[in-house]
């Protein structure tokens, strides 16, 4: 039998995890072709590159040697232009055709900018790719005035780096609060106060109308207030999955490529994973695009295993984020914004500490956690909250207690046997193998 031909489009988190999962299982028996316009790297560590904690090579997940060692034929610098599902071949931007037995769509997302005049001008940057990170890094000097447009999660991942590089920062957000898709009002208030006390200007509820040039500087015009002058503008105004190339392919696309529990699209030999995939959500049971790293990792591993012939059903992803800004830790899990859930809240007046637990019946469906970094890590709470939301443990007996003391989750976690339920669970049906230990047969 001829070796199976797997074609992976996109070498980011999802694509790379699929490749290692395939090799973990088949030890090199199949052919893998990677088509990617960028060399494989982990974009989510770019903030640490900006902060000069790591060099450029540190973001790379697989260089040429590693790809060769895993017997991956890499077509780097090439884009997939079209998928011919009926003919089972991929058409590249240079017209080359790559036939496949199965195809993985792992093309991630791209940043989007609001359509305001000047949005594409000089010294206006997105922060999503390595070249963009280089450009921002090269544009900052101690004392530089930086206007950050957008106060979402991605913007927040680079705040520490910008401050540590000596930037003077103004954060502009169109929504009435910062971090609108990560935390609620109460948490956003605390974070805003914390940043302001540390010299960051934060202006939620403002709309950018234009970005103009004035003697080498940028002027960000607002509909709702005085303009902001800056040396450099960062646009962190959201992302959109890279789906355009699938038009006309017959692959079903909603917010992302709709996939089943095996990460398979409506076309049986086409899979999708990561930011571009709309897969099962653990809490809601519905399908969703999560666009977070842990989901991309798990999607990639499950897709890879199924492509390699190991039937693996994905139990679904949990939406979750964690970020710290100037030593304030902020995390949220699951349906933290479920308006129909019962909320248990603990908000401290004496210090920045906030906790919100969201219940549907006896089940914890979401949580928000906020506190000084030092205080948060003196507990086991971050992971335990994840475990409680992830397992959906029946906490009916504990609800009164948790409502009275949302800060005290440890006993509920231990006594309900959450760890006992979790320990036998593995994503691929056995102990995980570190990527670096995956090898192929000679």
């Amino acid at each position, binding site marked *: 039998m001829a070796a199976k031909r797997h074609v992976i489009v996109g070498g980011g988190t999802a694509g790379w995890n699929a490749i290692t999962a395939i090799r973990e299982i088949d030890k090199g028996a199949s052919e893998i072709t990677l088509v990617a316009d960028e060399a494989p790297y982990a974009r989510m560590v770019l*903030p*640490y590159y900006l902060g000069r904690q790591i060099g450029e090579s540190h973001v790379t997940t697989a260089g040429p040697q590693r790809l060769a060692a895993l017997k991956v034929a890499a077509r780097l610098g090439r884009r997939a232009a079209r998928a011919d599902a009926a003919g089972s071949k991929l058409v590249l931007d240079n017209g080359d055709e790559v036939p496949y037995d199965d195809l993985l769509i792992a093309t991630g997302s791209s940043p989007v900018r609001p359509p305001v005049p000047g949005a594409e001008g000089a010294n206006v940057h997105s922060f999503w790719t390595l070249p963009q990170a280089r450009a921002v890094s090269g544009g900052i000097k101690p004392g530089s005035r930086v206007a950050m447009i957008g106060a979402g999660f991605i913007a927040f991942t680079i705040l520490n780096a910008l401050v540590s590089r000596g930037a003077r920062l103004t954060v502009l957000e169109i929504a009435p609060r910062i971090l609108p898709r990560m935390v609620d009002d109460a948490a956003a208030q605390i974070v805003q106060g914390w940043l302001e006390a540390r010299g960051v200007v934060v202006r939620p509820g403002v709309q950018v109308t234009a970005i103009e040039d004035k003697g080498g500087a940028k002027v960000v015009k607002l509909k709702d207030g005085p303009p902001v002058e800056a040396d450099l503008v960062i646009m962190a105004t959201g992302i959109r999955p890279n789906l355009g190339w699938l038009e006309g392919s017959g692959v079903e696309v909603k917010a992302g490529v709709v996939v089943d529990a095996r990460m398979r699209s409506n076309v049986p030999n086409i899979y999708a994973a990561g930011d571009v995939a709309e897969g099962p959500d653990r809490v809601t049971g519905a399908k969703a695009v999560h666009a977070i790293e842990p989901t991309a990792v798990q999607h990639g591993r499950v897709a890879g295993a199924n492509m390699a012939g190991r039937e693996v059903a994905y139990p679904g992803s949990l939406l979750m984020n964690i970020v710290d800004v100037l030593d304030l830790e902020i995390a949220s899990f699951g349906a933290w914004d479920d308006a129909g859930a019962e909320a248990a809240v603990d908000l401290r007046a004496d210090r920045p500490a906030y906790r919100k637990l969201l219940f549907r019946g006896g089940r914890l469906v979401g949580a928000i956690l906020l506190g000084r970094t030092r205080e948060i890590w003196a507990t086991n*709470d971050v992971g335990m*909250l*994840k*475990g409680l939301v992830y397992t959906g443990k029946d906490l009916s007996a504990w609800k*009164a207690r948790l409502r009275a003391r949302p800060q005290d989750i440890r006993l509920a976690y231990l006594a309900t*046997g959450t760890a006992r339920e*979790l320990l036998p669970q593995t994503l691929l049906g056995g102990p995980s193998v570190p990527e670096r230990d995956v090898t192929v047969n000679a």
Partner: protein
Amino acid sequence: MRVLKIIPERCTGCMRCELACSYEQTGTFQPSKAVIRVSSFEGHTSYAPYTCPQCAEAWCLTACPVEAIGISPAGAKEVADDICVGCKLCTIACPYGTVFYDPDSHKAFKCDLCGGKPACATVCPTQAILYVEAGTEDWLASFAAERALPAALAGAR
């Protein structure tokens, strides 16, 4: 593989495991930097140490974007400080609450079984923590269920 087997009935709450652990991990006695944590059970004079079960899924390891977490010769999931960037993804991936973040070094840290000589087990005076050949288990669930009665605790402040 040898694992940390915890027999909570034997724990007296002396906290030596936390102290020894933090000393081994950081070179100073700081229980807030221990990766084994002792819980107390109100009204029961009962205590139980809790640490990383070295689970098969290795959530922390698979989540790491820079492959900073590997498996040590002792079988522990171990963070390589020089590779870790401190993004904390492992801490939210882990559903056990046993991966921590060190605000001083800006790195993740967790139980590494002290390279095969776990300090917590060595110092435990009552042998509530054993380092033995065994399958990993939830050592605390029944003990905690018996002692942490949610109804009795409900109103407690």
